[in-house]
């Protein structure tokens, strides 16, 4: 079956208007930029609702949307665990517990925190591995976008990669992080405008939520796909996972590692205008995140019912294409163009978030401290622009590496197990245990990364069998976390800790207290604690309703 959208000039006009708006934001942002801090951290001046939506939008890439709709079709309502267990608790933890250390210590990046808390070798190691990870992930997003453009519009792969890269390049080089963040907020609303109508039409077509449930029971002969916790005592459920990997693997190591240490996310909060606004950034982001499953899982389930042969042998009917297939099925010209813009916007968000984190880390964490120190601010501003160009060019090259992988999600999960899981162990121990020494930070990270490597290559080369690629990545994350923790504790007992005075504002119990909170931030609905508990409570209620 051919999946080629029947686009006409109206759809292309809608696409063209979007590109003009995106570039317009870049030019407007350029008028604003005076210093390198403006470029890399938006001058730390953005209100919390903007950074909060950007925070969630940086995660709402197209891989996430297409992947979660695919999971919805394959695993059904169990997919909510990726949101309610695998994201909300970590986002609340970041806002309430960790943000005071990040924002309060005035670091400009996550690696910079490691330099202050530990030492320079830890800093360099993490900055290098982070720069590598972001470029690789940007490349994956570019490649996946090109795949979708080829499938839906018939564009050649290379043309798709180059056009998308060029647009992201122009708006980030011009406007830096402000431009990336403002575009992310715009993308967030465009994605909603594209997915909500699609979800509603799908639901109307199958006779509402009840009709959808009936159809699925009729089709599968049971209601396995409509529950989220049933069968998790043993692993006898569509996800093939018991509550232990769901809660500890997904909910703890992977999720906390991703949300609390990934600079592409944390950077959004660091650009907020005050500590209070920085704390509220992930908390405001948590609320949309709670409801996003409605516009990813429901379309996935609708596609399962209405698209005959979904998930079968035809490569065009793979689960990953659930949303494009629905667009083709239901949307007339006009709305079709808007949905296409939503997908493209989501892909560009994924590329831009990583590229803007990459240029910051390369400039502030590698070039400024270790290669050319003490230059003027203008020098670093220009260097940041060059780093952006270089990052995108390397991203295009790595997009071609990603094309060698059959399943893009496997590649992404592998990257996360290598780069995020060990980092989280180092952070959590370093923040809560004053005694942890600088060298423990360094060797812990090395050991954790090695742990992920052993799990991955051992599985590849047949030393042991960890199951599917996703399961192997999950075990890799656990291996990375555990090895990092053991080595960190071990090395701490044989090396000298930092003097306590140097840890001010960096460790638990010594947080910087923001003594001057403006009156407008003392209102109850602007208090981080209220927002955080509200998000957790809402999640708990929904979890019970959809158990």
């Amino acid at each position, binding site marked *: 079956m051919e999946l080629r959208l029947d686009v006409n000039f*109206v759809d292309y*006009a*809608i696409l063209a*208007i*979007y590109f003009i*708006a995106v570039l*317009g*934001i870049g030019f*407007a*942002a350029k*008028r*604003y930029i005076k*210093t390198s*801090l403006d470029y890399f951290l938006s*001058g*730390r*001046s953005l*209100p919390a609702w*903007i950074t909060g939506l950007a925070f969630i939008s940086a995660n709402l890439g197209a891989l996430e949307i297409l992947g979660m709709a695919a999971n919805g079709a394959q695993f059904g309502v169990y997919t909510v665990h990726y949101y309610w267990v695998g994201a909300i608790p970590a986002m609340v933890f970041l806002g309430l517990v960790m943000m005071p250390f990040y924002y309060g210590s*005035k670091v400009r990046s996550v690696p910079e925190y490691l330099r202050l808390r530990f030492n320079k070798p830890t800093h360099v190691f993490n900055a290098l591995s982070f720069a590598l990870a972001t470029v690789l992930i940007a490349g994956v997003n570019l490649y996946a976008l090109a795949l979708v453009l080829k499938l839906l519009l018939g564009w050649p792969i290379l043309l798709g990669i180059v056009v998308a890269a060029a647009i992201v390049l122009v708006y980030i080089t011009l406007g830096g992080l*402000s431009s990336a963040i*403002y575009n992310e*907020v*715009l993308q967030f*609303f*465009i994605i909603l*405008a594209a997915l909500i*109508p699609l979800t*509603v*039409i*799908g639901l*109307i*077509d199958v006779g509402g939520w009840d009709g959808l449930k009936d159809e699925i029971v009729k089709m599968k002969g049971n209601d396995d796909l409509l529950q989220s916790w049933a069968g998790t005592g043993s692993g006898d459920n569509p996800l093939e996972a018991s509550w232990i990997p769901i809660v500890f693997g997904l909910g703890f190591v992977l999720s906390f590692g991703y949300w609390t240490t990934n600079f592409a996310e944390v950077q959004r909060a660091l650009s907020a*205008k*005050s500590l209070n606004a920085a704390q509220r950034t992930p908390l405001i982001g948590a609320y949309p995140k709670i409801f996003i499953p409605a516009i990813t899982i429901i379309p996935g389930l609708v596609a399962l019912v209405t698209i005959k042969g979904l998930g079968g042998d035809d490569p065009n009917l793979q689960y990953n294409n659930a949303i494009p297939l629905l667009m083709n*099925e*239901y*949307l*007339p*010209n*006009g*709305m079709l163009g*808007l949905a296409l813009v939503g997908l493209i916007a989501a892909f560009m968000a994924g590329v831009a978030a990583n590229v803007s984190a990459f240029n910051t880390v390369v400039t502030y964490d590698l070039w400024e401290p270790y290669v050319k120190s003490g230059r003027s601010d203008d020098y670093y501003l220009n260097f940041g622009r060059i780093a952006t160009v270089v990052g995108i060019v390397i991203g295009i090259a790595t997009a071609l590496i990603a094309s060698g992988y059959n399943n893009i999600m496997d590649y992404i999960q592998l990257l996360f197990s290598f780069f995020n899981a060990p980092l989280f162990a180092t952070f959590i121990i370093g923040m809560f245990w004053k005694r942890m020494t600088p060298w423990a930070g360094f060797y812990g990270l090395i050991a954790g990364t090695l742990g992920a490597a052993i799990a991955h290559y051992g599985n590849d080369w047949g030393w042991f069998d960890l199951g599917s690629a996703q399961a192997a990545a999950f075990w890799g994350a656990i291996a990375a976390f555990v090895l990092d923790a053991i080595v960190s504790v071990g090395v701490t007992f044989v090396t000298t800790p930092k003097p306590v005075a140097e840890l001010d504002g960096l460790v638990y119990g010594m947080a910087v207290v*923001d*003594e*001057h909170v*403006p*009156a*407008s931030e003392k209102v109850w609905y602007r208090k981080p604690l209220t927002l955080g508990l509200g998000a957790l409570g809402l999640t708990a209620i929904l979890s019970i309703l959809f158990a």
Partner: protein
Amino acid sequence: MPEDKFISDADKAEEESRAARAANLFDVRRFIGGLFLIYGVILFVLGIGASDAEVEKAAGVNVNLWTGLAMLLVGALFIAWALWRPLGQELAEAESETAGGGARGH
């Protein structure tokens, strides 16, 4: 912000109003509102002229019409919000609130 005691108050006021204008120009709410209004008009017009086949395709819903209307409404709300509380004014208020203590940044 560089603090220079030789800059006169008049210059400062001038600088501030220019900053406020720049902030308004660069207000993301205006971008979102504007884009939604344009898309809303396009979809709404397409919806008015929708053929039976198009409505039939989308499970009997005139999706362009309804999405267009919703986007017009959302776009208008964003523009109204941006005009009601201009960013330049908000920044100035935040500035005066924090003035006198705890000014953070570089």
